[in-house]
């Protein structure tokens, strides 16, 4: 590593939102030609730290240093000028524009009358570096896969002479081929003298591409180590502060009769010939990355996919797809992976959210029975672990974990226990609430529900399921019973399954 002051650093930095201290006295520094991973559970403070670096948030205590000098980064524009660039989790490409236009979008240095030839040349060069040399720059971004869009974002950073590139969960939605491309792009950038901050949950990648890793937990820096000097287990211990075992509840299950039988479920281009049988009291996990079809399969079973076909039987009754109401009548309920966009009515009260699925049950001749609804809301809140004192508060005042419990409460509002379909049940939920949610899931099983969930978190899959179904690119790869398989095998299944066998 070359000498010189670290390009970017924070010393004793603290950040508060209201009464919460989100960053507590954090000190770390990034040098040139370094790829640093920042790891931590949800809610550990990673994204707040990134926002401090990119000028979105200002610190309440401590200093931010650029090139060794205390500097304020009052806005994203200033961050851009200091050479700090971010590729966020939610991409910042305008779908209506072409790749070329998106690369130059928001770039201060573009003259009023763009000299298209020059701009195209530079864009081409940047695209080449990220492995997209054969992509015509006029292609509208809306036609690109998410993986390629990610690479376009990195190409954009290259044209901005960024010195420090921050990638926030860059590979969460990528296929393995695309991940390799990103890695080679990152290695090339490193050799050119740039530094990279790499935020990820995927511990394997930390060891594959990063030189060192800083771990945050509950807003504090646990430590910074070179990746060559630690192993996975130690990294996980640093992140969780406890061993894995305590997260997942123990149970002895006695699965009952079959509640859900799926045959030949297909969604053109996304899910191919999916088959499943699930029993009462059982948790079945579909393990797969984004794009594996796991999430889409459950959405199809919930009745949300217009093009889904297949034979589905729930509670011994055949149900027709493509209608949420038909699914609900067969006691099949759904918890969405997109909490804010599809899971919660943010401006309605907690109570109104809880009874959203069962209004029909509590009305007579089209009139709502408010007394019944109040009772039902209280019962569901208790069953899902939602604070009764918050029943009248608007749902957007709840934390992510509590909103997820809200969604759970809503899903068990049917008149008898049925099938619960959950997509990524702990996405964006912090550690404490996760353990509660896992406990809830098992409780529901005891009550007679059958749970089918889709998750890209392999530890969660292994910790929670009776049956694991691994999926890759829309196809089922293998089915395992609890205890029959280890993490490596599942990971292999969902990232690069053996061709034939």
């Amino acid at each position, binding site marked *: 590593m070359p000498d010189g002051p670290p390009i970017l650093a924070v010393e004793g930095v603290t950040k508060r939102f209201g009464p919460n201290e989100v960053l507590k006295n954090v000190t770390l520094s990034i040098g040139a030609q370094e790829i640093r991973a920042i790891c931590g559970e949800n809610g550990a403070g990673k994204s707040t730290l990134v926002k401090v670096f990119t000028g979105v948030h200002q610190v309440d205590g401590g200093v931010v240093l650029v090139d060794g000098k205390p500097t304020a980064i009052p806005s994203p524009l200033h961050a851009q000028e200091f050479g700090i660039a971010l590729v966020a989790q939610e991409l910042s490409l305008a779908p209506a524009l072409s790749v070329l236009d998106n690369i130059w979008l928001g770039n201060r240095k573009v003259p009023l009358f763009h000299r298209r030839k020059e701009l195209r040349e530079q864009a081409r060069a940047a695209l080449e570096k990220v492995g997209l040399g054969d992509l015509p720059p006029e292609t509208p971004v809306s036609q690109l896969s998410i993986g390629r869009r990610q690479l376009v974002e990195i190409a954009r950073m290259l044209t901005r002479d960024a010195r420090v590139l921050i990638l926030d969960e860059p590979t969460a939605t990528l296929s393995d081929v695309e991940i390799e491309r990103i890695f080679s792009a990152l290695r090339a950038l490193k050799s050119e003298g740039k530094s990279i901050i790499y935020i990820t949950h995927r511990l394997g990648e930390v060891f594959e591409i990063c030189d060192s890793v800083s771990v945050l937990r509950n807003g504090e820096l646990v430590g910074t180590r070179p990746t060559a000097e630690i192993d996975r287990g130690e990294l996980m211990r640093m992140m969780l502060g406890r061993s894995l075992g305590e997260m997942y509840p123990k149970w002895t299950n006695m699965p009952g009769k079959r509640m859900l039988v799926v045959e030949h479920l297909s969604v053109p281009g996304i899910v191919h010939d999916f088959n499943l049988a699930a029993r009462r009291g059982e948790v079945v996990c579909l393990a797969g990355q984004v794009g594996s079809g796991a999430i889409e399969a459950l959405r199809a079973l919930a009745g949300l996919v217009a093009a889904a076909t297949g034979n589905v039987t729930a509670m011994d009754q055949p149900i027709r797809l493509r209608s949420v109401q038909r699914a609900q009548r067969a006691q099949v309920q759904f918890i969405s992976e997109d909490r804010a966009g599809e*899971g919660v009515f943010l401006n*309605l009260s907690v109570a109104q959210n809880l009874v959203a699925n069962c209004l029909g049950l509590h009305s007579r001749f089209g009139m709502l029975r408010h007394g019944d609804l109040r009772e039902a809301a209280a019962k569901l809140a208790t069953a899902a672990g939602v604070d009764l004192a918050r029943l009248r508060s608007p749902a957007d005042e709840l934390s992510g974990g509590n909103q997820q419990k809200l969604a759970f409460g809503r899903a068990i509002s049917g008149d008898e226990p049925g099938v619960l379909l959950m997509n990524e049940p702990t996405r964006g939920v912090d550690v404490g609430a996760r353990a509660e949610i896992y406990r809830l899931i098992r409780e529901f099983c005891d009550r007679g529900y059958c749970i089918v969930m889709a998750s890209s978190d392999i530890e969660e899959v292994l910790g929670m399921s009776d049956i694991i179904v691994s999926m890759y690119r829309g196809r089922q790869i293998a089915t395992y019973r609890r205890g029959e398989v280890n993490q490596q095998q599942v990971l292999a299944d969902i990232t690069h399954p053996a061709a034939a066998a």
Partner: protein
Amino acid sequence: MTKRRIVIGIRIVTIAAIAVFALTTPGFTSPISINALLNAISFIGCVAVGMTFITLTGNIMSLCLGATLSASALIFLASLSAGILPAFVLALAFGIIVTAAQGLLVGYFRANPILVSIAGLSLLIGGADLATGGQRIYPGGEGLQVFKGRIAGIPVEALYFFATVVIGQFVLSFTRIGRVMTMVGSNARAATAAGINTAAAITWAYVMAGACAAVSGVLLAARYGSGDMELGTGYDYTAIAAVLVGGTAIQGGSGSVVRTLIGVTVIAVIEVVLLLRGFSQQLQYLITGLIVLAVIMLHTIGERR
């Protein structure tokens, strides 16, 4: 929590200020001015109640409720020869059909509501011109008295308006479909995932809007004794202004008919007060416009975008 209290506080203070301003105006409490107030509120109020349903379900506004009002009035006048009740029912049915068709497009296909309302406006104007040849329509029979005059000193229009308000708010607060409308406006995707028939909810919201516009049309036809398509000009803007001044959110999911009642009353009171205090009509217009702008701004500060 505190932010919410501040917002409610501002609203109460604003209404109180307006009330004080009104009550200290000489002549405000005189029968003539109360009458004028009630009249102003009733006609525009019905349309505003209807507009509330459209806004509440997340469909922003309709630009053709005024035209629906006019067309229903024409139908009412023309069918008076068949009797008061049939004429009223026909007018109502017409208003409902016109808006329900729009509601179906917006609900089932998620067609853009503003675009659909502009299309509806064109079709209504063209259709009316085709049917009437541009002529004024006069009553085809007796019976207009039912919809004008007074009962116990209160203008009949006001009674019809209050009935509309009561029915509208009842639907919102006590029926399942009313609650569903609010949920659809709050988050249409979540409503679908919750098993709600969002298309039906939106269609019903448009049906309410059409019915309310038709009622207003009948009342106006009765008052003026004749009608043409100019009857409802400008009503759409005043109606949505009343909805927004009342505090219903433009993006939907939050609001009520009672709030719209307050909004209509506030605007009408301001107009009457300005008139009584001797402001010229021009200044009335300007000051009302400024106050509407100010109140809309006040509402959204402290809320989400």
